[in-house]
């Protein structure tokens, strides 16, 4: 088999929230509201982010564990229907290496006073193309972080 390949994959996450679709939508649309929940794990510290919530607008978000690789999220909004639907594409970089590109759809449906959220991500994982770089940058960072956490004084 050739090493020139891309892995495609789709996954779905469904959640229900005790808040109206308008409130859930606002948590995606308003940068301050979004910053409250769209962030890395607590140990990552503050992310650096920028967003322009309109069709064709971009969003970037960078963060990472201290000493580890920088995780970058770069999105472009493809379609927005207020309180109902948000479609965006995003790519993920570890340091300078682009690892995956995804098409993401968020659908909001009213559900007995709350909101049902359906998240669908269709991704293309560019592993094979980035293999040497990924090994050097991404995984080394991961392993370094692991190694740091195993330090005797830790």
């Amino acid at each position, binding site marked *: 088999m050739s090493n*020139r390949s891309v892995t495609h994959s789709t996954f779905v996450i469904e959640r229900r929230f005790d808040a109206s679709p308008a409130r859930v939508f606002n948590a995606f649309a308003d940068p301050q509201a979004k910053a409250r929940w769209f962030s890395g794990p607590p140990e990552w510290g503050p992310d650096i982010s920028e967003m322009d919530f309109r069709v064709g607008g971009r969003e970037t978000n960078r963060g990472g564990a201290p000493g580890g690789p920088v995780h970058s999220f770069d999105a472009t909004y493809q379609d927005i229907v207020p309180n109902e*639907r948000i479609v965006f*594409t995003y790519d993920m970089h570890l340091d300078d290496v682009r690892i995956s590109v995804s098409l993401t759809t968020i659908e909001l449906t009213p559900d007995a006073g709350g909101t049902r959220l359906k998240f669908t991500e*269709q991704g*293309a994982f560019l592993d094979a193309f980035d293999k040497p770089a990924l090994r050097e940058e991404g995984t080394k960072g991961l392993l370094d972080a692991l190694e740091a956490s195993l330090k005797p004084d830790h």
Partner: protein
Amino acid sequence: MTACKVVHDTIVIERRFAVSPARVFAAWSDPNARDRWDVPGDDWVIAESEHDFRVGGREYSYFGPRGAPRYSGDGTYLRIIPDSLIVMAGTMSDETGPMSASLSTVEFQAGGPGTLMRYTEQSAFMGDETAAMRIEGWTEIFDRLEVELKG
């Protein structure tokens, strides 16, 4: 609009061409070549197009049946590896609004005497279009690509 429904689907189309990956890749990267083959029928036309073939560059075309173009495809190149890979993302719309958003991957592999091209499109369909219709469209387009590569 109320109760908009989104259908997610992935299509994969593979084609073999009797020319090198470099030649197949060039049919995608050269704007003039691209406008010759990238329409789904002889009676279809491209009224306007922009192929800014570089990462971050825009990929746009306004096309449709001769005399009545009504579709527009608007996207961005996300990744380009010469002779190997093209990744694009964008939307397709008609006069009523967006029909789909797609992530498209085109892979070129040298194989046998020519090239194996694999086109994968991961789509969110927001209108009446289906994956089967999309496959039909691409089949027509890739038939034209084959003619282009024979020329």
